[in-house]
């Protein structure tokens, strides 16, 4: 039987078998021992047509919450921002979508050029000197930051803010175990929600490889990064930032960060149930040879024409094998391209407007909630996420869901040690009417 993905006809098969001198395709599998073949059990799955497959997938997608029936106030590292149509359309161009890693530079100038642009934009946003062309997600980028700090400082002790995204913390915990790291947890101030600086000072006496901070942190509070680098000396200041905020907020590079990582999903990508995501990674030039990940560099061709190549590959696994700076092979190219296009569209001043619009809406919601007697848990500055104080967060959450509002479960904040709060996230997509409805719903809850 023919299949639309496989062009060979009976005549083609026969012609190829004749050229090979084999009687059947089965004969070509002679290398597999009979004992192994005899154990084979088939999956026993029918082949569906495209029509049947589409119907099946549509049915599955409809088993999820219908996005038209809910208003989302969920964030916590995965955001519901507007994505300009041009982003998706450009990513569908097969020359971007289906090509491989740009090993053949002459036929990959499209990819190599946007990688160079992406690196430039990450540097601009973070205020850092060099950036790679992406990593798997914000959490694994953070883990790579720890590995890099260990390589440079030759130390294994890290001070980690308790207020970083708990899902990122869980990934770091995996590496803590595998690399035998010691973690010192830095609490947050119960009033402001900001890092407890006295605890940082104390931890700094312990000979650290690095201090890991997130800003805005998981509770939405913007950290005071100024002065932290001085407190920790030679240890690495690693900042995990929400890149959407970096048009409005001062870049971490300005405060002496040694590594800045971001989860880039907020810049041009749908939530996609949490993946694929986009890790961004930037550092200072002096550490470039210790940096993980792919890098595009500018050069010229033999006729003097400007072009781009992958460079400093001697750091990478396919050259250095066991001595590589990281085991990662590819990156999140297509998402990095989407973010490059998103940032080109929103432009130099648009990202700040985006930050301001998000902040205005979130602060309006917080004022309205306060006026309705619902307290915000922290008084530190925030951008578009904040925690409200509720006595039974899980019950409140469920009531909100029954009224058509989606908010994060209480369990995520509990991982940061907050068991009387709900995290609310407001993006530019939320209208004033929706914000007002949420206030009413919370008043009744």
């Amino acid at each position, binding site marked *: *039987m023919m299949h639309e*993905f496989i062009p060979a006809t009976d005549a*083609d098969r026969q*012609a190829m078998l004749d050229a090979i001198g*084999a009687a059947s*395709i089965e004969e070509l*599998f002679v290398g597999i021992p009979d004992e*192994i073949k005899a*154990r084979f059990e088939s999956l026993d799955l*029918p*082949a569906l047509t495209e029509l049947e497959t*589409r119907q099946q997938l549509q049915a*599955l997608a409809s*088993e*999820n*919450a219908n996005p038209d029936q809910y208003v989302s106030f969920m964030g916590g590292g*995965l955001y519901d921002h507007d994505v300009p149509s041009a982003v998706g359309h*450009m990513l569908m*161009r097969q*020359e*971007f979508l*289906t*090509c491989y890693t740009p090993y053949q530079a002459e036929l990959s*100038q499209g*990819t190599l050029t946007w990688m160079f*642009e992406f690196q430039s934009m990450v540097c*601009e946003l973070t205020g850092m000197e*060099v950036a790679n062309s992406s990593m*798997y997600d914000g959490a*694994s980028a953070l883990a790579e930051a720890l590995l890099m700090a260990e390589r440079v400082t030759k130390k294994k002790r890290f001070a980690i803010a308790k207020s970083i995204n708990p899902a990122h913390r*869980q*990934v770091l915990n995996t590496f803590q175990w595998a690399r035998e790291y010691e973690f010192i947890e830095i609490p947050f101030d119960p009033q402001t929600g900001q890092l407890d600086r006295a605890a940082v000072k104390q931890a700094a006496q312990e000979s650290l490889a690095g201090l890991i901070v997130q800003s805005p942190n998981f509770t939405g509070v913007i950290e005071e990064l100024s002065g932290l680098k001085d407190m920790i000396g030679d240890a690495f200041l690693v900042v995990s930032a929400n890149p959407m905020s970096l*048009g409005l907020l001062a*870049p971490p590079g300005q405060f002496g960060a040694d590594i800045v990582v971001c989860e880039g999903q907020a810049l041009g990508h749908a939530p996609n*149930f*949490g*993946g694929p995501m986009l890790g961004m990674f930037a550092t200072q030039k002096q550490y470039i040879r210790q940096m993980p990940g792919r890098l595009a560099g500018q*050069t010229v*061709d*033999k006729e003097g024409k*400007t072009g781009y*190549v992958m460079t400093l590959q001697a750091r990478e696994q*396919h*050259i*250095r*094998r066991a001595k590589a700076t*990281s085991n*990662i092979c590819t990156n*999140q*190219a*297509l998402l990095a*391209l989407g973010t490059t296009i998103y940032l*080109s569209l929103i*432009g130099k*001043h*648009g*990202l700040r407007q985006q930050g301001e619009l998000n902040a205005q*809406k979130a602060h309006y919601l917080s004022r309205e909630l306060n006026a309705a007697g619902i307290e915000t848990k922290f008084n530190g*500055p925030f951008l578009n996420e904040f925690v409200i104080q509720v006595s039974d967060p899980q019950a409140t959450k469920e009531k909100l869901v029954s009224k058509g509002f989606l908010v994060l479960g209480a369990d995520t904040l509990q991982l940061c040690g907050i068991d009387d709060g709900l995290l609310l996230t407001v993006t*530019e997509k939320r209208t004033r009417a929706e914000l007002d409805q949420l206030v009413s719903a919370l008043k009744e809850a």
Partner: protein
Amino acid sequence: MSTIFEKSVPGRIGYRLPEADVPTEPIESLIPDALLRKEAPNLPESSQIEVVRHYTKLSKMNYGVEDGFYPLGSCTMKYNPKINEDMARLAGFADAHAWQGEELSQGSLHLMYDLGEMLRQTAGMDAITLQPAAGSQGEMVGMMLIRKALEKRGELGKRTKIILPDSAHGTNPASAMICGFEVMETKSNKNGKVDLEAFRANVDDTVAGFMLTNPNTLGLFEEDILEITQIIHDAGGYCYMDGANLNAILGHARPGDMGFDIVHYNLHKTFSTPHGGGGPGSGPVSVVAELAPYLPVPVAVKHDDGTYGLDFDRPDSIGKMQAFHGSFGMLIRAYTYIRMLGSDGLKSVSDHAVLHANYIKERLKDTFNLPYDETCMHEVVFSGRGAVEGAHMTDIAKRLLDYGIHPSSIYFPLIVPEAMMIEPTETVSKEELDEFIDALKAIVKEGKQDVNVLLEAPHTTPVRRLDDVKAAKELILRA
């Protein structure tokens, strides 16, 4: 080609935001001035059409699977069905938040569970995680599983060695090293397979595990695999299979039946999710029952009442590898692909991948040196040594660009001098195969007449050969 930065004109915009529909306050009254950015980041200023044209232009300087034959060995550059893209963008999937709760995520979880079962059974294993973001992260998970198992056995300090063949992918030793293991290479024999004698001598009671790609990176099935995995098991170690070459054995053989304890899949190779210029990938990992408790959290499960969920309650788990549940968008594409092929179709994939590779091997073995002359699986490795006096494999590859064909992988595996690794996949037609074969023959012929045609190649691409040394010396890494 100029960058988008060079095309920037102050004042232009490519996207507008709505006016605030809420009462606003001065931004400095909401966020302290010291925390605000003083100077706008230097992002481009372009109108929408300029941005679209710029990236359309860039795309035309690339070569995709839809442009033509893409026989890049070890990467499985097969056709990426269009329906995959549409299914991944269904609003119910694309707009779902990872933390919206099991009740509101039944479709995603159902798909994850079913895909997991299909992949698990395809490899003949007992349990699976879909979380790893790519093959290399799958390898890291595999190494961590071994580490955890040894820890449970109280042998972590004693078993420190991961053995792998000299033909292994570079990610293998790098992944083992990050997880704290020492790496020992074992040599290949004259047939390009694991040398059993040397291998046996390398195995002792310090072995933690063994990593192997099977069929191996030469496209040859390791015929001694049952003995190899037995030797490792007898010594108390674990066997890891790099699943990069699964496209060769679907419907014919399962890693679980070969004695492997851990297998990773590359959904972007075998199961048709697009490569995207180098990601996103997806690298699920399946394991035997003994290692199942250690898989990363959460694991997609089916409850007794027929609903689906995420199991976080796994006290012996190595932990999380990704913030959320892996490359879900890629899982949708792979699921779509498997449903359209069914089990017979999957077998047909490998049938034709292997048929095509052997056809190329037969038709080119008089043109290039074939270091291992036996029936191959889904890819064939030639040596370019001596094909054209005065030219290297890279020159032949660059000349292929002028014929409008993407070159094969070159200089890998490392054990073949001047290697050229050709993987045609099942989705190529016989006419395209013949064109490719004729092109390579023509290149060798013209190279023998005038080697400079090869040394100067490519002649027709957007740029000519680029100066790698200058790039590494000057390190211009941003606009």
